[in-house]
């Protein structure tokens, strides 16, 4: 029983970690290549969730919704890059933070205007809606397992894209020296738009997948965005590999902390107090982890361009 529960929590932690990776990968790519801090990344996550839920409700197919959310997030990302973000590359980080904060306000209110204040609900596809039996006789929601697999597949695909393809070569070159690859004849403006749209698509994909677990509502991207920041700080800004490792660490630490701390504390204090203190401490755990990493490795676990 306890072993099964433990295993279930580990899988939940992996699932959170994989989601965080999808967010953090886009953020860290955008920062690595364009030097931009993008608070509106959480809004793209939210847009992905809303588009998937709306299209799935309209067509009756989760898969069409998923494809639509990818397309919508990528298109919106490209549009935002061309209209606004492009003007921010040469600005300081304060301007970038404020402009993308403005975008967050506009996207949140815009989505509220279109879809209303009530949350939408999204059902996972029928064949993934039941539990699967894991080895050891543990039932686990098939959909969550599918998220883990899909996320790891995307991580592998992203790794291949960056290490093996021409686009990936340009992205890596862009991280190393922007002026130089522009001088070599790469259309840098187009490359930036593509990278931003790629990051947006990853965020939208994550939002659509998560939409079938939680309710789809305005502001759903913000907690994920801030967790993704923690992931990037721990992993090292600009490093995809760092983002993957840190995302899995953060996902596991957060989930296991919430699961184990109240139980552990119950040994030293009475049950209700242990629940309160345990959940309060558990909510701080990943930030404490971040503080520890900062003390020993201020540039993160896998510093890029070091």
């Amino acid at each position, binding site marked *: 029983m306890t072993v099964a529960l433990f295993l279930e929590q580990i899988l939940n932690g992996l699932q959170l970690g994989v989601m965080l990776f999808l967010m953090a990968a886009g953020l860290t790519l955008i*920062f690595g290549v364009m030097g931009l*801090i993008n608070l509106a990344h959480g809004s793209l996550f939210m847009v992905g969730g809303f588009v998937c839920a709306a299209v799935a409700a309209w067509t009756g197919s989760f898969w069409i919704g998923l494809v639509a959310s990818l397309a919508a997030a990528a298109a919106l990302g490209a549009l935002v890059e061309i209209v*606004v973000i492009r*003007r921010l590359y040469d600005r300081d*980080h*304060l*301007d970038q*933070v*404020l*402009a993308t*904060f*403005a*975008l*967050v*306000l*506009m996207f*949140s*209110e*815009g989505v*509220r*205007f279109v879809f209303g204040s009530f949350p939408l609900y999204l059902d996972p596809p029928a064949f993934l809606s039941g539990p699967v039996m894991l080895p050891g006789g543990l039932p686990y929601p098939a959909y969550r397992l599918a998220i883990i697999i899909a996320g790891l597949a995307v991580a592998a695909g992203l790794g291949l894209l960056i290490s093996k393809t021409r686009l990936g070569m340009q992205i890596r070159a862009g991280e190393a020296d922007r002026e130089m690859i522009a001088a070599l004849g790469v259309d840098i403006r187009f490359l930036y738009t593509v990278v931003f749209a790629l990051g947006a698509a990853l965020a939208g994909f994550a939002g659509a997948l998560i939409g079938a677990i939680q309710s789809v509502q305005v502001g759903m991207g*913000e907690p994920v965005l*801030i967790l993704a*920041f*923690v992931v*990037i*700080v721990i992993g090292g*800004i600009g490093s995809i590999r760092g983002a993957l490792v840190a995302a899995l660490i953060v996902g596991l630490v957060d989930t296991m902390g919430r699961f184990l701390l109240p139980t552990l504390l119950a040994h030293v204090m009475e049950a209700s107090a242990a629940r*309160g203190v345990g*959940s*309060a401490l*558990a*909510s*701080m755990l990943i*930030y*404490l982890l*971040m*503080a520890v990493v*900062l*003390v020993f490795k*201020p*540039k993160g676990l896998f510093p890029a361009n070091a």
Partner: protein
Amino acid sequence: MRELVTEHRLNIVLALVLLGGPLIAHFADEPFLVTLATRATILALAGVGLNIALGLGGLVSFGHAAFFGLGGYAVGILASHHQNYEPLMTAPFLINGTNQMLVLWLVAIVVSGLAALVIGALSLRTSGVYFIMITLAFAQMIYYFAISWPAYGGEDGLSIYVRNAFPGLNTLRPLDFFLLCYAVLIVVLFAQWKMTGARFGIALQAVRQNEGRVAALGLSPYKIRLAAFVISGMVTGLAGALYADLNRFVSPSMMSWHLSGEIMVFIILGGVARLFGPVVGACLFVLFEHAFGSVTEHWQFFLGAALLAVVLFARGGFIGLVAGRVRHD
């Protein structure tokens, strides 16, 4: 030099407008407008705090709502113990709650200063984007702690039934409370003005402009930044204490990252590193919220659009527009 004189005159005009408006509203029997001005004054104070770190020190902190909220909770917790006649702690010595603002402010300043010391000591090991993300993350940590800690209301927040007391004033009257907040703001602005010209202020601005040269002069940039960050957190914490008494309510939403963003917005609307920048910005923000908020519930969309326009096209903010730009550094 001429520009500086203009800004100086502009500041005096702004200070008088912020004082005169609520006085007129009071005698026109519009207590709501007095309260609105009080809100702007307190938010301005929070912005003044952030401006010390951000404007003078170049430290883009995205976590100042944490200090604002800690100041508020310091007041809320002590006041709740006072109104329930329960001591805050009995061992090893007795500490009672209180309703005296002077004591509450002191506690709020100390608590937010200590938090700023710890957060600053860790965050200032990094710079740039790391610093922005880390201050945001630590603020979020305190936010989640406030939500999940059940003793003081958790997510529901904490009510202060009667506004706390200040000797010689009836703080329940809107005008009295406004004047008190206004006086605090002016005192802090005066102190900041003095500090900017003093040794520490000059060193702080030098660190922003050229860290290496300051280090070569034998000063420690890290210590100067940390001191500025702590002072900045204390001022924002004091603003949080006043805000708690304004609403007679504290809740985790005082620490939300939206509020951190809004405090930053005050500064950019008014003008970065300008003494009265956050004051103008907070007033514009409150007026904007009041004007658009009564027309449409989607006023934040227009706030975002306005903010975007200011960032992209009108750098320097209101004071930059009126008094001209400061010499570029």
